[in-house]
């Protein structure tokens, strides 16, 4: 039995007590799978650098306290804060329950429904997706109709938090873009509350032929909270995804971005920025599977690390046999600001076809003394100079973020985070 298993009985009870709906049978099947495997441990290659012991511990304490639905009085406050600064249509999922946003359902070319209404059984093949499917009250299904174009971004706001007892929440969203459709999405993860919290979410995107999606994921959880998040994107012929992920908060954060290229001439552009300070552990695993070619994928991740923290980046591009004409590029650059920061980077290529162009580059370094001196000689104090240089380092990701409506907010929160980080590292 895995050391990171959860108590059988309590888990079964928690599943049984979920609202009775069309997902019930699926929950049982997923539960059986999770009980068999438990949480992944560091003995597994993909989890080598990320230890889920603390997450298993929160889950266990949550089960012991009767698996209450997490509630934090201040959740709505946090929702209002975000609404006030990013003026787009938000669907709010508070502690795993869809609380607001159904008004958007009426928009032309767009349908929004719950999994239970559609009898949509969420898939599960990864241990954390199993756990998610087993404990999921309900999921959100977004359907973008064929050839409809949506210029106004749709926001998905995941807000979690518990005030007294430890909380665990499961969130799941399925987005289906039909042929030739275009849409923009902003996925925002926030949390609040004093108690320990673990959020486990899965977002799936399916892009049909010629569909195109712009997607920005912002993770700004509270310092003490944990998250595992899985995004699975599948692309058909001539479809395009432009994806940017920003990780600024959270104590232990693991993101899996799994992209499956199943159609010719598909384009994948992925950007990512992680900024970690004292006590944070941020892990980004990206896997791009080129099943057919020609197709193009590009990913660029940048990390800024200060204080006592650890970041993990694993970028993997797979070129399957016969996927000729694949063009896959990955790059990862890291800036270490502190003596106690650690970066574990692993850019992987697995190539089984020969008509390909693949490359990757990774660098780890610190702020260039010469650049710092240059700025100081022009009258900037050390802190301002440091901030200017770190800001410049992250700027290529921030400025390439594909959705204009969140650009200002992103710039502001990245700036705020960097200020805190450079102040800390200066001390």
């Amino acid at each position: 039995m895995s050391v990171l298993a959860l108590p059988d009985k309590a888990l079964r009870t928690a599943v049984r007590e979920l609202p009775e709906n069309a997902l019930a049978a699926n929950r049982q099947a997923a539960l059986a799978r999770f009980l068999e495997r438990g949480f992944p441990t560091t003995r597994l290659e993909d989890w080598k650098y990320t230890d889920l012991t603390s997450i298993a511990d929160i889950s266990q304490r949550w089960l012991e306290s009767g698996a209450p639905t997490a509630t934090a009085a201040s959740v709505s406050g946090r929702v209002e804060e975000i609404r006030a600064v990013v003026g787009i249509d938000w669907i709010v999922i508070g502690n795993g329950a869809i609380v607001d946003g159904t008004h958007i359902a009426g928009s032309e070319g767009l349908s929004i429904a719950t999994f239970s209404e559609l009898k949509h059984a969420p898939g599960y093949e990864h241990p954390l997706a199993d756990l998610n499917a087993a404990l999921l009250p309900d999921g959100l299904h977004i359907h973008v109709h064929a050839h409809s174009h949506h210029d106004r971004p749709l926001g998905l706001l995941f807000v979690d938090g518990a005030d007294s007892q430890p909380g665990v929440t499961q969130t799941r969203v399925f987005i289906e873009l039909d042929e030739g459709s275009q849409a923009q999405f902003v996925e925002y993860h926030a949390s609040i509350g004093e108690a320990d919290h673990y959020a486990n979410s899965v977002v799936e995107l399916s892009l049909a032929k010629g569909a195109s999606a712009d997607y920005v994921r912002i993770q700004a959880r509270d310092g003490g909270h944990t998250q595992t998040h899985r995004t699975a994107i599948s692309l058909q012929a001539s479809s395009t995804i432009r994806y940017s992920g920003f990780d600024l908060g959270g104590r232990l954060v693991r993101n899996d971005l799994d992209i499956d290229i199943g159609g010719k001439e598909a384009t994948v552009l992925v950007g990512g920025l992680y900024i970690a300070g004292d006590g944070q552990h941020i892990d980004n695993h990206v896997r791009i599977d080129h099943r057919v070619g020609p197709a193009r994928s590009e990913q660029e991740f940048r990390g800024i690390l200060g204080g006592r923290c650890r970041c993990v980046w694993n970028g993997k591009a797979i070129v399957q046999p016969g996927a000729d004409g694949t063009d896959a590029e990955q790059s990862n650059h890291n800036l270490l600001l502190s003596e106690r920061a650690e970066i574990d980077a692993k850019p992987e290529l697995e190539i089984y076809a020969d008509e390909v162009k693949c490359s990757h580059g990774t660098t780890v370094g610190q702020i260039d003394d010469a650049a710092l001196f240059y700025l100081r000689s022009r009258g900037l104090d050390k802190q301002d100079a440091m901030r200017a240089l770190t800001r410049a380092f992250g700027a290529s990701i921030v400025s390439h973020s594909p959705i204009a409506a969140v650009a200002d907010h992103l710039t502001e929160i990245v700036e705020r985070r960097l200020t805190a980080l450079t102040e800390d590292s200066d001390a």
Partner: protein
Amino acid sequence: MSTETENIESLVNRRYEHGFVTDIDSDSLPPGLDEGVVRAISARKNEPEFMLEWRLRAYRLWLEMREPNWAHVHYPPIDFNKISYFSAPKSDKDRPKSLDEVDPKLLETYDKLGIPLHERARLAGVAVDAVFDSVSVATTFKEKLSEAGVIFCSFSEAVENHPELVQKYLGTVVPQRDNFYAALNSAVFSDGSFVYVPKGVRCPMELSTYFRINAANTGQFERTLIVADEGSYVSYLEGCTAPMRDENQLHAAVVELVAFEGAEIKYSTVQNWYPGDENGKGGIYNFVTKRGDCRGANSKISWTQVETGSAITWKYPSCILRGDNSVGEFYSVAVANNFQQADTGTKMIHIGRNTRSTIVSKGISAGRAQNAYRGLVRVMPQARDARNHTQCDSLLIGKDCGAHTFPYMEIRNPSARIEHEATTSKISADQLFYCRQRGISEEDAVNMIVNGFCKEVFKELPMEFAVEAQALLNVSLEGAVG
């Protein structure tokens, strides 16, 4: 010099034309592994008590370990009880009488290599410690070396004549519990080479050992230990050939290098164990642990390898950069053709201040082969101003092969400067067309381009190895184009 040459010639000519089964009466232990076998190996080699204890401890550790399965290779499970763990030729006199016993296909291959061993040896004044099966049968140039104070002998001799050195250094770089195959090797290793270069001595010649696997079903468990004391220098060459055989054979060697302050060790390998035939039948499983420890300040360890053989290779020559200002280097060409699988690379562990490492890896895949680079660069918190540059390029020849890269970077010091770049490409039609148009055959053109691709590594090899390596590469890629 002439007597030396004769020595080598006679030694080499007696029986060394790669790739035949020398039909001599091997004094083998029956297949299977238990404490009795470990004791029997130790007893047969008249080892002192400490060696037996060391082997037994390794064996007990091994029993609790699990076979690793993380490498990007696939093979049927190995039955460790079907392997015979000891095999020694009964007498030096039993030599093959003629080349008729040799598989003509392999002979042809080695003809194409075009470099007779004796010539290779003569070129550099190489001392040869030929490991025949598992027992060292000949060592030359001993006098010249002993004048300089260099100890170069088989591992068994070292245990007998220099037990204090063996006891002091054995297992200090690759401990028994290091990994599954290292533990197995520690328990049953039969022989290998031992080198000790005293303080301030520059070893007067390149040291060289040729291994070969003989006797069916005998795993080859070699152990090499090289100690370079303060301010010394040694260059060690290792070349491997193996006979044609249909059953897969296991080779689990361990190489330990220790470099003290200001010392330098250069370790070069040309590995062309039998890779199996065009259909992927047979071939050697080469699961090797090689590690160097730059123990003193300003020391340097350099690994250069040309890997063309073996059905499966699983090998990561590594450097522990403990001393301040120490330097680690890894230059590798790995070729995989037909059904070969290679998972090879290096580890650079930066511990001391101002340590530097360079990794240049060139992987070539052809046929249905799978070739993976797996490397680790770790910078510990105390390793101020560490520097690493890694370049890892793959060349694909054909539609059915694979090239993979798994680099790990674990950086815990902000002053580190780490760069990693990798590219994957194929030989372009333009390049080929250009050569063909100038009258160069397609095969020659491919060889030329591949040699150019590997130049950075070949230039690091000692001269005679470089020549052989190029020829070997051409032979290995035969049939890859067409």
